[in-house]
Protein backbone atom coordinates (compact mmCIF):
# COMPACT_ATOMS: atom_id res chain seq x y z
CA UNK A 1 0.00 0.00 0.00
CA UNK A 2 2.74 2.39 1.05
CA UNK A 3 4.70 1.50 -2.06
CA UNK A 4 1.87 2.30 -4.44
CA UNK A 5 1.07 5.55 -2.64
CA UNK A 6 4.72 6.47 -2.90
CA UNK A 7 4.70 5.50 -6.56
CA UNK A 8 1.77 7.87 -7.06
CA UNK A 9 3.72 10.66 -5.46
CA UNK A 10 2.50 10.64 -1.87
CA UNK A 11 5.53 11.01 0.37
CA UNK A 12 6.61 7.80 2.07
CA UNK A 13 6.58 9.41 5.50
CA UNK A 14 2.87 10.13 5.30
CA UNK A 15 1.97 6.57 5.95
CA UNK A 16 3.19 4.57 8.90
CA UNK A 17 2.72 1.07 10.19
CA UNK A 18 3.81 -0.12 13.59
CA UNK A 19 3.35 -2.91 16.04
CA UNK A 20 3.04 -1.98 19.70
CA UNK A 21 1.98 -4.21 22.57
CA UNK A 22 -0.51 -2.81 25.09
CA UNK A 23 2.27 -2.86 27.70
CA UNK A 24 4.62 -0.73 25.62
CA UNK A 25 3.52 2.79 26.54
CA UNK A 26 7.07 4.09 26.12
CA UNK A 27 7.35 2.66 22.64
CA UNK A 28 3.97 4.23 21.84
CA UNK A 29 5.22 7.64 22.93
CA UNK A 30 8.46 7.21 20.98
CA UNK A 31 6.63 6.23 17.83
CA UNK A 32 4.20 9.14 18.12
CA UNK A 33 7.13 11.53 18.51
CA UNK A 34 8.97 10.04 15.56
CA UNK A 35 5.95 10.14 13.26
CA UNK A 36 5.02 13.61 14.38
CA UNK A 37 8.53 14.90 13.63
CA UNK A 38 8.59 13.29 10.20
CA UNK A 39 5.20 14.65 9.23
CA UNK A 40 5.97 18.11 10.56
CA UNK A 41 9.07 18.09 8.37
CA UNK A 42 6.84 17.38 5.37
CA UNK A 43 4.22 19.97 6.21
CA UNK A 44 0.53 19.73 5.40
CA UNK A 45 -0.69 17.28 2.80
CA UNK A 46 -2.18 18.78 -0.37
CA UNK A 47 -2.40 15.66 -2.49
CA UNK A 48 -5.33 13.28 -2.57
CA UNK A 49 -7.38 15.71 -0.48
CA UNK A 50 -10.90 16.20 -1.71
CA UNK A 51 -11.92 19.77 -2.32
CA UNK A 52 -15.59 20.00 -1.40
CA UNK A 53 -15.97 23.60 -2.55
Amino acid at each position, binding site marked *: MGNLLEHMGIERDRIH*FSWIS*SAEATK*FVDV*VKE*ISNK*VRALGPNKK*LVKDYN
Partner: protein
Amino acid sequence: MNDNNIKIVSFLCNWCSYGAADLAGVSRMEYPADIRVIRIPCSGRMSPKFILSAFREGADAVWVSG
Protein backbone atom coordinates in the same frame (compact mmCIF):
# COMPACT_ATOMS: atom_id res chain seq x y z
CA MET B 1 -3.71 25.37 8.41
CA ASN B 2 -0.16 26.09 9.43
CA ASP B 3 2.73 23.69 9.78
CA ASN B 4 2.33 23.47 13.50
CA ASN B 5 -1.15 22.13 13.25
CA ILE B 6 -0.90 18.76 11.56
CA LYS B 7 -3.33 15.89 11.78
CA ILE B 8 -2.17 12.31 11.89
CA VAL B 9 -5.09 9.93 11.68
CA SER B 10 -4.17 6.91 13.77
CA PHE B 11 -5.91 3.58 13.48
CA LEU B 12 -5.11 1.73 16.68
CA CYS B 13 -5.97 -1.86 17.47
CA ASN B 14 -8.18 -2.12 20.55
CA TRP B 15 -5.99 -4.76 22.15
CA CYS B 16 -2.53 -3.52 21.31
CA SER B 17 -1.75 0.08 20.52
CA TYR B 18 -4.99 1.43 21.94
CA GLY B 19 -4.03 -0.25 25.20
CA ALA B 20 -0.57 1.26 24.89
CA ALA B 21 -2.08 4.69 24.33
CA ASP B 22 -4.28 4.19 27.38
CA LEU B 23 -1.29 3.14 29.45
CA ALA B 24 0.68 6.14 28.21
CA GLY B 25 -2.25 8.28 29.30
CA VAL B 26 -2.62 6.88 32.80
CA SER B 27 1.15 6.98 33.20
CA ARG B 28 0.98 10.70 32.37
CA MET B 29 3.54 10.44 29.62
CA GLU B 30 3.81 13.37 27.27
CA TYR B 31 3.54 13.01 23.53
CA PRO B 32 2.72 15.32 20.62
CA ALA B 33 -0.95 16.17 20.28
CA ASP B 34 -0.94 15.67 16.50
CA ILE B 35 -2.58 12.29 16.49
CA ARG B 36 -6.30 11.69 16.15
CA VAL B 37 -7.03 8.22 17.40
CA ILE B 38 -9.59 5.91 15.80
CA ARG B 39 -10.07 2.70 17.69
CA ILE B 40 -10.54 -0.36 15.53
CA PRO B 41 -11.57 -3.69 17.03
CA CYS B 42 -8.53 -5.42 15.59
CA SER B 43 -5.83 -4.54 13.05
CA GLY B 44 -7.58 -7.03 10.83
CA ARG B 45 -10.43 -4.53 10.52
CA MET B 46 -8.11 -2.21 8.65
CA SER B 47 -8.84 -1.58 5.00
CA PRO B 48 -7.06 0.45 2.34
CA LYS B 49 -10.33 2.36 1.99
CA PHE B 50 -9.84 3.80 5.46
CA ILE B 51 -6.41 5.12 4.59
CA LEU B 52 -7.59 6.76 1.38
CA SER B 53 -10.68 8.13 3.13
CA ALA B 54 -8.47 9.69 5.77
CA PHE B 55 -6.34 11.39 3.14
CA ARG B 56 -9.44 12.55 1.24
CA GLU B 57 -10.81 14.22 4.32
CA GLY B 58 -7.59 16.10 4.80
CA ALA B 59 -5.30 13.99 6.95
CA ASP B 60 -1.64 14.91 6.73
CA ALA B 61 -0.54 11.40 7.53
CA VAL B 62 -2.01 8.04 8.43
CA TRP B 63 -0.67 5.70 11.04
CA VAL B 64 -1.81 2.13 11.39
CA SER B 65 -0.71 0.34 14.51
CA GLY B 66 -1.44 -3.11 15.80
